[in-house]
């Protein structure tokens, strides 16, 4: 499967690419020149790149930054202006497809509220200053830090830095003597990585071959919108459904029907956090049925001895027969089990994930088409994702700040004051830090505590690269190039760090000798070229070819050889499957189930108008968010859709309008993340509320990762109403043969 994943280049798209315009490599050559605002000029290039021709499209291949999947995209540029982003058909991750977020990416470049230049906080107010002033000022401060040996007190928190940008940051910190580089995003799949590390002893996320699986059992993994690599796995889903092989059957287990569940053949509403129990019970049943007879069988038998389906009935809320049936179907498949979403972010997330690995292992779904395929580790990029939990890093920062051990924090393309639970106390911590630099594309919540707000390039203006974390079964690396000239006085993080290093001078400058980030990238890719792709004649040929294709893949290379036998110790000392929650049931009767909005994901692109105007796939609501409650809960509280309720948890409270949701477990209330920005451009500010604000800062003790699905809440009707807008008229088809001749019956 992974083989043809790259062979399945859509020829038609390829024709489009070469036909409708030339494939360009050159926009980067001139992005450095900042003159008049190019939006005023007909032809915004003093020196146009060679492939530039008025009236003719130029296609640049680069990388989407909408989520951590990093799809390869082809950007249509005309007269130097970005017109449209489409999936890069020759990229193994996106394979020509692209999600709504990726489409909307154009507006990260043209957003009306983007920062137009660096800003410094002068007596409380942010005021525009020049880059030169910023750099000299920062150089001065850092020199003082270094002079007083307080280098370790410098930290960088990044939301998106991957690939060599991440390495550059490490380099930079290392020269300062610090190792505090944290990649924080609420949607990080740390528990999954950790579980895989535990299970296989290798830093590699396996490739889940959804496309060819006859039976897919998903524990809360909404792989269609928010899990690992949405576009790639959406495509796989399509092939599973109507590919060449027989149609795969798909069961989704989760307390609230997500988009994936809506597309599943069967949706099982379990108690929140009981996925670990269910997985273990299924393993128990599988072993009982003698599905697995490997040498290590007995070790497993004893490890799951306590988790018989019968005992799983109470915690999961499913019938024993249902669980047994699931086990049978899973064995018969043989099935593929995946886990994500709330199931992965409970207090028992690591255990659940490991148990799911075990399920796959027991039915022999390893290294088999339609199963869990071995994957090579990323060619480069953050290894932290596997070892250390991002949230743990954040907590460490807070701790250090409390003890006054922090000198400077650089927030790069991250908005922790929005995306981390306030209970963590990050705001206070950052306020106590002498120097906080926020690098972002527009003013956000976090820039409120920053002394310097530095405008970042849009990803369409910057260089970058990445090696897909989730992987596609073989080593690949993609290059991101600027596709349009800068329209504001912005910088890319890489260029900024290098320039800063140069200002700092002496040994730091020596450690980062490169002219700019592009220079640095070339140097790094030169290594890849020498070690791996010697076949091509000359690095420049390699570089150009990669830029044009947007991706370099080593298909010939033997797959990385991770240990695809489960380590029996994987399950040890993982605590008990019973989920822990903040808030006593008596006081807080409902479990809060925050989920990544199918549209906004974690909300980093909530400022894009096209996304605000994209009706939520399930509710059809635009421009706000809501709280989903079960009809009988609504009856209990005496509220109807659009009535505002106050949602209080031990960590805080927010107000949201109710959406009576027919497909959610009665014990659960669900809130989509991504909205509720206080300050994030004209389109996102003041819309809905942010569920993260009431999430308790509770962690999965085993992995240290944030357990954002482990908070209980209570609901109080406020009597107010918020007339949110849904594009759905009547939610029922009324037997009108709309969904097909067959729907007349139950429609």
């Amino acid at each position, binding site marked *: 499967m992974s083989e043809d994943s790259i062979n399945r280049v859509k020829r038609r798209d390829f024709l489009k690419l070469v036909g409708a315009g030339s494939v360009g490599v050159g926009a980067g050559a001139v992005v450095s020149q900042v003159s008049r605002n190019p939006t005023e000029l007909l032809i915004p290039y003093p020196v146009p790149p060679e492939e530039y021709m008025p009236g003719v499209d130029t296609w640049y291949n680069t990388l989407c930054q909408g989520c951590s999947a990093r799809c390869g995209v082809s950007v249509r540029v005309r007269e130097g*202006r*970005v017109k*449209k982003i489409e*999936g890069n058909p020759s990229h193994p991750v996106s394979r020509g497809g692209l999600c709504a977020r990726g489409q909307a990416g154009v507006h990260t470049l043209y957003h009306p509220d983007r920062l137009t230049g660096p800003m410094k906080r002068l007596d409380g107010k942010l005021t525009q200053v020049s880059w030169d002033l910023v750099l000299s000022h920062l150089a001065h401060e850092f020199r003082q830090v270094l002079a007083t040996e307080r280098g370790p007190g410098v930290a960088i928190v990044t939301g998106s830095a991957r690939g060599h940008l991440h390495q550059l940051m490490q380099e930079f910190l290392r020269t300062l003597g610090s190792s505090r580089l944290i990649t924080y995003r609420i949607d990080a799949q740390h528990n999954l990585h950790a579980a895989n590390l535990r299970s296989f002893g290798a830093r590699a996320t396996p490739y889940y071959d959804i496309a060819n699986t006859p039976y897919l059992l998903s524990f809360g993994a909404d792989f269609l919108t928010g899990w690992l690599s949405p576009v790639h796995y959406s495509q796989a889903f399509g092939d599973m459904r109507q590919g060449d092989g027989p149609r795969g059957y798909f069961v989704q287990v989760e307390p609230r029907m997500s988009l994936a569940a809506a597309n599943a053949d069967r949706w099982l509403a379990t108690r929140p956090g009981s996925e670990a129990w269910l997985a273990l019970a299924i393993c128990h049943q599988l072993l009982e049925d003698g599905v697995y007879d490997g040498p290590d069988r007995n070790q497993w038998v004893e490890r799951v001895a306590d988790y018989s389906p019968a005992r799983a009935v109470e915690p999961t809320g499913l019938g024993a027969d249902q669980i047994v049936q699931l086990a049978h179907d899973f064995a018969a498949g043989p099935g593929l089990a995946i886990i994500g979403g709330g199931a992965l972010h409970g207090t028992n997330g690591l255990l659940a994930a490991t148990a799911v690995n075990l399920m796959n292992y027991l039915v022999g779904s390893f290294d088999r088409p339609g199963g869990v395929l071995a994957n090579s580790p990323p060619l480069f990029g953050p290894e932290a994702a596997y070892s250390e939990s991002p949230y743990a890093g954040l907590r460490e920062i807070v701790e250090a700040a409390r003890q006054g051990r922090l000198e400077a924090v650089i927030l790069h393309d991250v908005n922790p004051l929005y995306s981390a639970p306030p209970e963590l106390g990050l705001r206070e911590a950052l306020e106590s830090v002498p120097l906080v630099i926020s690098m972002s594309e527009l003013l956000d919540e976090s820039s409120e505590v920053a002394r310097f707000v530095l405008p970042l390039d849009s990803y369409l203006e910057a260089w970058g690269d990445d090696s897909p974390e989730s992987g596609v079964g073989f080593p690949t690396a993609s290059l991101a190039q600027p596709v349009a000239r800068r329209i504001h006085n912005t910088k890319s993080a890489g260029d900024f760090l290098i320039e800063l290093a140069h200002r700092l001078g002496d040994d730091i400058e020596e450690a980062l000798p490169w002219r700019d980030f592009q220079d640095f990238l070339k140097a790094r890719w030169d290594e890849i070229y020498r070690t791996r792709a010697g076949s091509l004649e000359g690095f420049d040929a390699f570089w150009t070819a990669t830029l044009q294709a947007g991706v370099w893949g080593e298909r010939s290379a033997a797959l990385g050889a991770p240990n695809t036998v489960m380590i029996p110790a994987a399950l040890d000392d993982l605590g008990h499957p019973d989920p822990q929650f903040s808030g006593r049931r008596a006081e807080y009767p409902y479990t809060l189930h925050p989920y990544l909005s199918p549209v906004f994901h974690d909300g980093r692109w909530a400022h894009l108008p096209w996304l605000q105007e994209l009706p939520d796939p399930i509710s059809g609501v635009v421009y706000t968010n809501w709280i989903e409650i079960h009809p009988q809960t609504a009856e209990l509280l005496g509220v109807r859709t659009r009535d505002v309720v106050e949602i209080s948890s031990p960590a805080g409270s927010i107000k949201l309008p109710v959406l009576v949701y027919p497909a959610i477990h009665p014990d659960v209330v669900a809130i989509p993340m991504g909205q509720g920005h206080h300050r994030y451009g004209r389109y996102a500010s003041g819309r809905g509320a942010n569920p993260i604000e009431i999430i308790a800062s509770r962690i999965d003790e085993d992995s240290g990762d944030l357990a954002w699905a482990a908070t209980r809440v209570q609901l109080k009707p406020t009597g107010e109403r918020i007339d949110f807008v849904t594009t759905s008229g009547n939610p029922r088809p009324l037997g009108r043969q709309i969904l097909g001749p*067959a729907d007349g019956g139950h429609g």
Partner: protein
Amino acid sequence: MENPHKSLKAKWEENRRPGYYQEYENHWGMVIDLDRCTGCGACVTACQAENNLPIVGEENFREGREMKWLRIERYWEGEYPDVKLRFIPMLCQHCDQAPCETVCPVYATYHNQDGLNIQTYNRCIGTRSCAVYCPYEVRYFNWETHVWDEPLEQQLNPDVTVREKGVMEKCTFCVQRIRKVKDRARDEDNRPLLDGEVQPACVQSCPTEALTFGDFNDPESAVSKKKHNDRAYKVLEDLNTSPSIVYLSRVEPEDESHG
């Protein structure tokens, strides 16, 4: 002059020929596989990006004045816990017997040589009758002249008109892309179009490849083949509009066999 016993379809076939142009070169159509469609909405945004659809703002949504040439309709079936949610992308069906075309007093909407249901903005006087006559409700009216916040207008697609107030608009199957490909084919010494060479924005972006676009006149095209799938049906077929969009209904496996 017309044989009354001849079926409407037959009459249509007759009249598919003459126009300003000599003959219908293509019969563009789409096949939408609901078993692949996940309702994610990528196509909706792709359409908005390609066709200069305005950013209308929340108030217009509340008024029911959104501009989405392509929308995802969602329908709930059953009750908890056996509740189902179904999606169906709804866009202009480019009917062969389009009610919207007959009602337009000024020929602003008609059938062009590609077999497309075309909306000619500069002819439209805004009677909105076509929107009333369209049973699929996929025609959208410009209640105002929309503006883009600077510098969002930099993104506007130069191949697509920006519509003014008082004009009706709708899905065009990305006619600008069809033109572009046809021109290219002509330049390359009139080679025939390749199947799948033309792709509307929605089809192009669809992550699950639920949408297929092609020429129904070409029996070898992917759409022509899929049309014969036994899941194939057309929405509101009994209204006899003979749409150019074929849906493949979603498979509902018997749950007995599975947990």
